[in-house]
């Protein structure tokens, strides 16, 4: 259904916008001799909620439709050119901003007021629309359109931009509402549906996974909770290593030649994006030192095509609204994944849930460990994985228990990194690439954090009020011996200090109260 929506909503909006534009809006006797451009607004709204690719496709299609729909008033292709560029610009800018700024400065999303998310991308949309109007005038000038002379543009442009700006919130709201289910994690982009999660309460839930609730107390606010789960024990990594992996639902292989096919997830596919399964991850090569710890991967998927995976659930149902702490969703809208990626071709890319250490007081922080979850938008494009960008989960406190003697393998990209005194302050992209060599890319096998029992759908509970908030929840982990092949530590680790491997602690984790001051995602450090 969601796929259907992704495929049908944008064309439907464009067709309606074109018809309304030529049949109604253009005939309105509005002052200023200008009218709002509904098609441009729809294109911009689709772009900011969907990303650059859906944006430019919608722009080209909508512009071409305006160029061809009688009455034709300009050269065919003019509007398509302008709208295509505008759609791309809006989408790219919105995506860029949703990632937390150019340098990935921590705190950018955290300081953002949760506010009505639908308005978060409004400035981008307004800027894109204004630029598009200007570009259209400029193009008309260049083409010597007798109607678009300098005085005419000077007369029309301000009024047109004003009308566009006035209509922007309405169009954006409509598009976001219609695309709501189609875009998983664009929480910051405001594609959420308000009813799904009360604002101010971010609920990260591992749908379908039988899991404990990771909820912080009010002070130790790790509101990362695995909702929708029952408090059944999760099997957790024995030595808790903070590898919060925001991975795709299934990432078949980064390089097919070297990686094995993903194992099937232990979680119901499509249900949980908190996925402990190792589907798609590669086992370490034999020569590598293996961690005894299995990282927990929280997979913010871009959503597989069944629509219920990962980001989809995250973005729409849960994170969609007001993520106070910068859990942002990432997915690109309707067109992205469905156009460019096969269902299983996605793999974790940058922008997966990542935590940052720079903001100790951040909402996800408990006990001073700032963990920020940032789910960017997985674009769903196949290809090499990208280097983990800035801002991966970095606990900035030194792990209390770490075996210093061992060198840790550098986490693969996308893993939560602990940053401490001994660790490099930050992983640069180059560093990430270096750690991305195949031998270092060993990844946890399947079986992490999985529900002990399948969760009956009836037990799902919507994150209504009272959920996860201020309840010191307990997470119950079942100790499990890590299988082999987990996260081998490569011999050539250049980065990373001991905190990545907590291999020596194989003791099981009993019931562990969370909210004790640390964000524990998948383990304790």
């Amino acid at each position, binding site marked *: 259904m969601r796929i259907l929506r992704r495929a049908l909503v944008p064309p439907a909006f464009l067709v309606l916008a074109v*018809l*309304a*534009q*030529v*049949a*109604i809006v*253009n*005939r*309105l*006797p509005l002052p200023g*001799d*200008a*009218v709002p*451009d509904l098609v441009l607004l729809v294109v911009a709204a689709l772009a900011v909620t969907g990303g*650059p*690719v859906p944006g*430019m*496709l919608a*722009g*080209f299609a909508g512009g071409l*439709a*305006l*160029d*061809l*729909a*009688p*009455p*034709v*008033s*300009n*050269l*065919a*292709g*003019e509007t*398509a*050119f302008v709208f*295509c*560029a505008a759609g*791309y610009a809006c989408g*790219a800018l919105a995506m860029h901003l949703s990632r937390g700024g150019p340098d990935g400065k921590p705190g950018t999303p955290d300081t953002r007021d949760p506010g009505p998310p639908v308005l978060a991308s409004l400035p981008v949309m307004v800027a894109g629309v204004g630029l598009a109007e200007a570009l259209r005038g400029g193009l*008309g000038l260049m*083409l010597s*359109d*007798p*109607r*678009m*002379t300098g*005085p*005419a*543009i000077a*007369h*029309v442009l301000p009024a*047109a931009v004003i009308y566009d700006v006035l209509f922007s919130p309405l169009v954006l709201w409509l598009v976001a509402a219609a695309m709501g289910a189609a875009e998983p994690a664009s929480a910051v982009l405001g594609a959420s549906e308000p009813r799904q999660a009360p604002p101010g309460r971010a609920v990260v839930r591992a749908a379908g996974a039988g899991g404990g609730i990771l909820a912080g107390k009010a002070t130790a606010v790790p509101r990362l909770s695995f909702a929708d789960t029952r408090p059944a024990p999760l099997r957790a990594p024995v030595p808790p290593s903070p590898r919060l992996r925001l991975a795709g639902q299934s990432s078949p292989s980064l390089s097919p030649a070297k990686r094995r096919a993903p194992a099937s997830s232990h979680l119901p596919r499509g249900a949980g994006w908190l996925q402990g399964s190792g589907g798609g991850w590669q086992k370490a090569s034999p020569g590598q030192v293996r961690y005894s710890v299995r990282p927990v991967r929280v997979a913010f998927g871009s959503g597989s095509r069944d629509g219920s995976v990962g980001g989809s659930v995250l973005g729409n149902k849960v994170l969609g609204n007001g993520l106070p702490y910068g859990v942002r969703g990432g997915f690109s809208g309707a067109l992205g994944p469905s156009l*460019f990626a096969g269902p299983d071709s996605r793999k974790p890319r940058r922008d997966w849930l990542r935590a940052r250490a720079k903001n100790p007081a951040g909402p996800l922080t408990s006990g001073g460990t700032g963990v920020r979850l940032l789910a960017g938008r997985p*674009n769903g*494009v*196949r*290809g*090499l994985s*990208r280097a983990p960008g800035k801002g991966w989960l970095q606990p900035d406190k030194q792990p209390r228990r770490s075996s210093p003697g061992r060198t840790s393998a550098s986490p693969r990209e996308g893993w939560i990194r602990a940053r401490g005194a001994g660790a490099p302050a930050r992983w640069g992209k180059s560093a990430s690439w270096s750690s991305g060599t195949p031998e270092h890319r060993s990844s946890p096998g399947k079986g992490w954090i999985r529900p002990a029992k399948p969760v009956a759908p009836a037990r799902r509970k919507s994150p209504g009020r009272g959920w996860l908030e201020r309840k010191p929840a307990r997470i119950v982990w079942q100790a499990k011996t890590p299988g082999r092949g987990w996260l081998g530590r490569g011999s050539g680790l250049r980065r990373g200090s001991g905190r990545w491997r907590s291999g020596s602690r194989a003791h099981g984790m009993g019931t562990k109260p969370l909210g004790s001051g640390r964000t524990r995602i998948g383990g304790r450090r």
Partner: protein
Amino acid sequence: MHENRRTRLALAVLLVAAIALITLSYRNGGTSGANGAGNSLFGPVENAAGYVTRPIEGFFHAIGHDDATEIANLQAQNDQLRAQLSRLQLSQSDARQLNKLLQLNARGGYRLVAASVIAAGGSYSDTVTIDAGSKDGIQPEETVLNGNGLVGTVTSVGPATSTVLLASDASATVGVRLAGTNTIGAITGTGTTMAGGDMLRLRLFSASAALQPGDALVTFGSVGGRPYVAGVPVGTVTAITSQPGSLTRTALVTPFADFSGLGVVGVVIAPPRVDPRDSVLGGH
């Protein structure tokens, strides 16, 4: 990185395609096969949408023109043609009968095809789409008028829709003649360059011609009645703008037709056998 490259490649492809379309359509002088395709594709849809949107447009137009004096003026301008066109507006079923009456009774002897405006162009252009096309016998470059006066000319025709370039468009030029004289000139639309719009700019070809506000203009007529037939009322001169010593006399003309509130229009599918001269002006 990878997807960025791919995205940018796709963007470049789309932009190049758009530019190619622009050049193709530019070479054909603004009309290309694509326009015909657009007419066929969007015409029926717009036709259908017109039934839905007509009341909406009428509502807004009524709001915008809720002015007692204007209503009085409009009523004063009721000539026979307008009365019948108004009746046509009320009832689609009367269209054929009214059309016949129009053909018989129009002062100028024009043969008209009545049509309704169903869509309009964007901010920069003064173009409209009417719900009559080649199936109704309309061909390009036929004059369009309504009960008040000249509206424009047909630029492209689809099966069921036609595009009309209004006389107020900046790219439209109409040959006119001062009523009662043989002084000729041309009017050009001012497009959107002027606040208050809907003014036409008159340029008389003679520098010594007598011109004063209040003079009425009718179309001079083109060869074969295309794109403009002769004798259609255009407007009245409201302000002389020519500078002393200039080679031509220029003035601003207020058109008889209200270009922002077009409803029912008629397309002249056959010019009168003889030039009606100023007879059609009688209503004004």
